[in-house]
């Protein structure tokens, strides 16, 4: 068998489609991280832990008969509050981006241990009405849980982009990220805005967690497997960007999927990280 195989058109199209779906999840996972990193200057690794915590909460509620999408009504406000609380604590210690990375990495380990003690380290799968739903478009299969993820990812990215571009709050947030003292001099209520944004980031990642529960099998230790690729999507997409992580995530997802269809699955990470390196070399300011 050669390493390179010419795929059939159906195989290629199905691979592109699954790349778009998985890329949407990368984008959704990266959205809150990008905003936190770019606008609050905090690299919040606990995002990955929060995503998994939300996924397990969704799993738990769904096991009591609650529709997984309806769990968002409780999970999103709860995580908003959690995000606000965490940011309030971090702000008290005036953490540098590097220290925030260390602190939230520790927090990630704590949340993993909590998840493990409640739900065990075993694999869990959400059984819901959506799990087996799919439809066919021509020769292509479109799974409903992945489609829901894509719709949510696009909808939220566009909504956040619109808020950042078109509202006073968005302009204040961007101004504070650009030059906090000057923004404060113009009357921007930095502390309040930062808490609001931190809460929003946590709420966004909780939505990603519910999508994760809908589409994937869960194990606490898997949260670490997402770090590399989501970081790549965030850095490629541009820090603080709302649409960037989604576009970059989709690009990575599709490139990985096509690589897997044409060559070997083990080459997929090489392609996505090569993309990241190329972009960082050509546009070094991207991760600034």
């Amino acid at each position, binding site marked *: 068998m050669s390493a390179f195989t010419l795929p059939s058109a159906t195989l290629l199209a*199905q691979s592109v489609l*699954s790349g778009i779906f998985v890329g949407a999840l990368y984008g959704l996972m990266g959205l809150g991280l990008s905003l936190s990193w770019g606008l609050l200057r905090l690299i919040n690794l606990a995002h990955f832990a929060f995503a998994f915590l939300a996924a397990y909460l969704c799993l738990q509620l769904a096991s009591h008969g609650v529709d997984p999408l309806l769990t968002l009504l409780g999970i999103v406000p709860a995580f908003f509050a959690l995000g606000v609380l965490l940011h309030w604590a971090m702000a008290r210690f005036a953490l540098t981006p590097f220290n925030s990375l260390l602190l939230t990495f520790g927090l990630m380990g704590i949340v993993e241990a909590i998840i493990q003690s409640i739900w065990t380290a075993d694999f869990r799968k959400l059984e819901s009405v959506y799990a087996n739903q799919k439809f066919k478009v021509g020769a292509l299969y479109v799974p409903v849980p992945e489609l829901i993820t894509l719709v949510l990812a696009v909808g939220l990215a566009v909504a956040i982009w619109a808020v950042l571009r078109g509202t006073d709050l968005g302009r204040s947030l961007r101004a504070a990220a650009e030059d906090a003292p000057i923004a404060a001099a113009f009357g921007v209520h930095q502390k309040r805005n930062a808490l609001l944004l931190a809460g929003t980031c946590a709420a966004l990642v909780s939505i990603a967690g519910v999508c994760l529960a809908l589409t994937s099998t869960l194990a606490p230790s898997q949260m670490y497997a997402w770090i590399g690729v989501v970081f790549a999507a965030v850095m490629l997409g541009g820090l603080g960007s709302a649409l960037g992580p989604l576009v970059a995530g989709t690009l990575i997802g599709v490139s990985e999927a096509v690589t897997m269809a044409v060559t070997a699955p083990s080459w*997929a990470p090489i392609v996505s990280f090569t993309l990241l390196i190329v972009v960082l070399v050509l546009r070094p300011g991207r991760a600034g």
Partner: protein
Amino acid sequence: MTPLPLTRRTALALAFLVGLPGVALAQAPAGQPIRIGSTLALTGPLAATAQIHRIVGDIYVEQLNKRGGLLGRPVEWIVRDDQSKPDLARTLYEQLITADKVDLLMGPYATGAILSAMGVAQRYNKVLVHHTLGIPSLAKYDMQFPAWSLGSEPATTVPNTVFDALAAGPKPPKTVAVVTSKFPSIQFMSAGAREVLKKRGLQEVLFLEWDFGNRDFGPIANRIKDARPDFVWVGAIGLDGNLLLDAMKKIDYTPPQHFYLYPAPGPLVSLPEAKNALSVTIFEDQPPFTSHPGAADFVKLYRERATKAGLADPSVETQAAASYTAWQILEAGVNATRSLDDKAIASWIKANRVDTIQGKLRFNGTGNFGDDLMRVKQVQNGHWVVVWPKEVATPGVKLQAN
């Protein structure tokens, strides 16, 4: 003199009196405890499986102390958390020997940590019995003993057993897809499967590898569907099988026949798409495996404890059986030599067969490995049943194809 009639009640009273000292002795080990040290991946990515070894170790030490401990002394198991990190396992084994001054060692989980522990054991001339070392060729130390009976050449013997089972089944395959994780103890087995299938005149229509921790199995499922194999060999570890089957379901594809090397057994069996999935095992909690001495009691006790601990699958299979076997091997070595001398224990184990729940095991082959006792099992009606070889197959069960 007329002999006294031996009534049932008298006989019972006599039996009680005769047995009493023995029982009293067995229940009261005395003196300084014998300390057995090990690490387990109590946290980290391997924690789900290591939890099995923790439960089994607790059960075994409890049973051992109930029947008098070792050499009449109580046994204390010191278990440290290696956090699924082989380098940490190395440090902790070093500490167990030098700081905790344990009398004996027990192996950790999994292959990486076992190899780390083996290096330390070799440095201090300690016997190391281990549960599930996946790559026998790496076991170079003379005083290490495997409890997982996969033979010294599993990359050849195990695939041959699987293809023998398929050849005797309802749809002997002609074309095969080999898709595999690059996880070390998996990759060499899948490479072996490729060699074996070629030697048997089968056609390999697809070969794919992925890195451990791969999240997206959609494109792999697409490639398999496109290749249309009669049989899919999946070099799966942990959740790989579930993720691949999920991805296959999303494109409405069911492989005609499919095999998963080392899947997480509980989650796979509970998946409807895993119907007729094949795997390998050294032990299942069903006859004839449970007929080995002590096996039925262990299976019952393990089921209770695993259920209480919230494990998804409370049945005894390869991991739990290998873990229990490891303790049996160590106990047999100590009891036979009446000592804690590592060299004496090692010499005895190597020269003798040990009674275990897997049967009588030998350790005189290459790398101290004995026979390959890997059997082929299949998911049928939501349960694992053993389908090959015939002599150990679950009564009334035959291999099925989709």
